[in-house]
């Protein structure tokens, strides 16, 4: 641990620290453009100059390792003058178009120019101009503003693993480009907008929409996958204008997936903002009173055992708790939150969580994916696994399921049950590798569990994990990767059929007369018998609403305080950013109102009381933001029998990453991604005659 002195402050820093990190540890801020602590060091902007005793010239602190006894000065006149000079060079070719730049107000270059910029220019030659590039529907480019820090290039190749950006040519003509003029295909591409220290890369859908200081910022949790990414919702008036990641090293570090960032324009379209009742086969607008009395009449008229409820993928735990309590009050055992029919045992958390925890990934040295495409189902989490692969040359990865490019070296072991069965043989090449690994992960996806032989798949994976040493006292490597934000919360609340209750398949097959869909749009509506009376409670006019007999307008995740439990079992609280549109209401209050009308009032009148009830139902809900690594219990075995494994192929969880739920299906931006980014892996380039 070298001892260094920063501006007179003596401190000890870890080996391998850079001077910039040491200065930060001493509480000194160093201006920087190219340096980013989650990317490799480029050292090309020179803004981070400091003086070091015995070194003749100022030194770029971001790339300089500390040495024993170094005496560092971060704020001498020489340092300030050097930074001023660097700034002058950076501004030579910078357009200074801040008034029409979307980065204005949150621009590193602008901020540093306040400290180190000159009030006039000495450069009277023409500035260089760079043509804008096509990076697809999400990232807008104004490349003349680029200061060539290469953060975007480094992010895409190092973190996202989709090296589509680079610097072409050199010197004066150097440009940051993808060269091929088509959309970036990474699911994490939006992060380069946050990383770009200037306004060269901005959010295309957000172009010219708002200034940062006009926005109301609310902390929330992302619901587009089950990672539980911490987000900040920026709203103005009654509109959500953008979503940005918040830093949480244990969950998303500082990244956010593109769908979560850009699907929000779907929140303004196809909204259910008033109740509807189906009359003579057509949905008619109705009042709350009329809708609620119709609901109550149906509930009262139905046999309790013939009432059922299905919770969707985006539900907050509060509304699921209220719905379950309502059904139990009515005497019905039929409720299920596993829309896709995944065979998950809600009885034991170890059997449905990402047990290793997201932070635990950082220790892993091998991984087997079964029936999951981690890149599309959990992009941020996949980037974390990718980092293990980058850091660790011996990292072994294998995938069973439809072939997918998951951005790092991964052996495709097959796409059917037989491939999984083959791994049960301890002599199988991959099984041997997995067993040789010290901390292997077995990650099983929802599609693997949603098959008729899901329990057998589960048991087989468990066996493989056990044989690989992933279920020992100090390493729990068996993981279920969810792709629905609501799922773990639902399982934690026991939103699964009670004794004798029907599951999703049973209900859809006509096991109930009245079916309450809480934001459930991904079940097979066509399979529902026509005489089933469907109450759809949710926020979008999607598949469920189209089938509904009564629609109760609820709130989207941005419009209600909510509790979500992510795939590793971390319970997190989201705040309300805006109010629901029109007559729509917070979901649990709708259920509370119905319970009173059927004379089975729920025992809570406000959200605190409801949350207390949740805490009683499962202590998980009493401890926000904590995960416990579950040590595998001795003798725990899943119910299935791996002998029952069928040879059927595993299927992909969704047809396209960009449209997976009512919000993203309503989003024009996501629709554009589907047409512009996805289909042609390599579009036919523009025809051009040779010159």
């Amino acid at each position: 641990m070298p001892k260094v002195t920063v501006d007179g402050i003596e401190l000890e820093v870890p080996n391998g620290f850079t001077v910039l990190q040491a200065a930060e540890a001493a509480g000194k801020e160093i201006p920087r453009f190219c340096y980013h602590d989650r990317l490799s060091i480029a050292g090309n902007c020179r803004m981070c100059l400091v003086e070091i005793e015995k070194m003749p010239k100022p030194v770029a602190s971001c790339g300089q390792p500390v040495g024993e006894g170094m005496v560092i000065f971060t704020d001498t006149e020489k340092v300030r003058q050097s930074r001023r000079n660097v700034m002058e060079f950076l501004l030579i070719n910078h357009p200074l178009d801040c008034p029409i730049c979307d980065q204005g107000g949150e621009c590193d270059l602008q901020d540093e120019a306040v400290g180190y910029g000159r009030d006039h220019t000495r450069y009277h030659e023409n500035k260089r101009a760079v043509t804008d590039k096509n990076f697809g529907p999400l990232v807008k480019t104004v490349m003349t503003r680029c200061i060539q820090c290469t953060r975007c290039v480094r992010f895409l190749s190092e973190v996202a693993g989709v090296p589509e950006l680079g610097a072409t040519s050199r010197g004066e003509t150097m440009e940051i480009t993808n060269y091929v003029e088509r959309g970036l295909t990474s699911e994490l591409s939006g992060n380069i907008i946050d990383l770009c220290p200037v306004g060269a890369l901005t959010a295309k859908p957000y172009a010219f929409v708002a200034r940062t200081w006009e926005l109301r910022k609310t902390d929330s949790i992302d619901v587009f996958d089950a990672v539980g990414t911490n987000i900040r919702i920026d709203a103005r008036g009654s509109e959500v204008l953008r979503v940005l990641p918040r830093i949480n090293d244990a969950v998303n570090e500082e990244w956010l997936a593109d769908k979560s960032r850009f699907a929000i324009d779907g929140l303004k379209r196809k909204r259910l903002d008033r109740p509807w009742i189906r009359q003579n086969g057509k949905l008619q607008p109705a009042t709350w009173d009329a809708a609620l009395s119709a609901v109550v009449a149906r509930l009262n008229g139905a046999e309790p055992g013939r009432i059922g409820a299905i919770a969707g993928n985006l539900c907050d735990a509060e509304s699921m708790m209220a719905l379950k309590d309502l059904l139990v009050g009515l005497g019905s055992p039929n409720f299920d939150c596993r829309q896709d029919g995944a065979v998950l045992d809600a009885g034991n958390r170890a059997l449905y969580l990402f047990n290793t925890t997201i932070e635990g990934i950082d220790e892993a040295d091998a991984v087997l994916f079964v029936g999951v495409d981690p890149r599309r189902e959990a992009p941020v989490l996949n980037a974390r696994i990718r980092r293990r692969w980058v850091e660790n040359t011996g990292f072994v990865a294998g995938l069973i399921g439809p072939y997918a490019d998951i951005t790092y070296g991964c052996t495709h072991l097959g796409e059917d049950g037989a491939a999984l069965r083959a791994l049960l043989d301890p002599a199988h090449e991959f099984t041997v590798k997995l067993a040789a690994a010290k901390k292997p992960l077995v990650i099983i996806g929802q599609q693997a569990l949603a098959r008729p032989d899901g329990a057998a798949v589960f048991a087989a994976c468990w066996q493989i994990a056990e044989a690989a040493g992933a279920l020992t006292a100090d390493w729990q490597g068996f993981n279920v990767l969810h792709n629905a934000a609501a799922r773990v919360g639902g399982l934690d609340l026991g939103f699964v059929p009670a004794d004798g209750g029907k599951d999703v398949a049973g209900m859809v097959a006509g096991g109930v007369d009245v079916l309450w869909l809480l934001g459930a749009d991904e079940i097979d509506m066509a399979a529902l018998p026509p005489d089933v009376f469907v109450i759809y409670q949710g926020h979008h006019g999607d598949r469920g609403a189209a089938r509904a007999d009564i629609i109760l307008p609820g709130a989207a995740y941005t419009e209600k305080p909510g509790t979500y439990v992510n795939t590793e079992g971390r319970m997190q609280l989201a705040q309300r950013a805006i109010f629901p549109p029109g007559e729509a209401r917070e979901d649990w209050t709708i259920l509370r109102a119905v319970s009173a009308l059927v004379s089975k009032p729920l025992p809570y009148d406000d959200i605190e009381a409801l949350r207390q009830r949740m805490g009683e139902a499962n202590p998980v809900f009493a401890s926000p933001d904590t995960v416990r690594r579950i040590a595998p219990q001795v003798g725990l075995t899943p119910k299935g029998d791996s002998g029952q494994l069928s040879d059927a192929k595993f299927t992909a969880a969704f047809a396209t990453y960009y449209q997976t739920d009512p919000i993203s299906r309503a989003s024009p931006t996501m629709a554009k991604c589907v047409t512009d980014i996805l289909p042609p892996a390599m579009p036919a380039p523009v025809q051009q005659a040779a010159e």
Partner: protein
Amino acid sequence: MNDMTTETFSFDDVSEAKIPGIIAKYPAGRQASAVMPLLDLVQRQMARLTDHAWVPRAAMDVVADRLAMPRMRVYEVATFYTMFHLKPVQKFHLQVCTTTPCWLRGSDAVLDACRHAVATHGDMFSMEELECVGACVNAPVLVINDDYYEDLDGARTEALLEAFRRGDAPKPGSTIGRQNSAPEGGRTTLFADVTKHDTGADS
């Protein structure tokens, strides 16, 4: 970008035969180092087969896939070096050195002659200006495809280009009979017979 093309590219047998040897020069796992020789191979194949030496983007993709490296990394290399032509050049690509020594020795006249050739026979000649090509001692210098033509003036450049146009193959090197980079008109020093030279220092 003007270098897009619908052309597909594949290495022909002649090029294909050279590839293993090129890749073998680099340690295993470092085959991406072969990117420059392979791009050069592409350019030579294009010249051989079409008379236009250049690197189409489709070929960059082929090189990237062959070397298992990201396509973008190949685009970066190909655009970095001006020796890789991103657009087709003509059969005789004239590269005129216009840096100070050549300029002082009359590269303007060479340039004019080249411009004239391109203007009148644009189907045969294309040209570009280069920075110092490292043969200043025989300035001014004109590089045609792979060969250097030195000690030029306007008239000799015109004659040279005319010879190319006729289909002759003029001998590369000095156009005034200078031997390599020896002084003009023969050597001016080192007349003594060095084999008989007595060092006089035997202590």
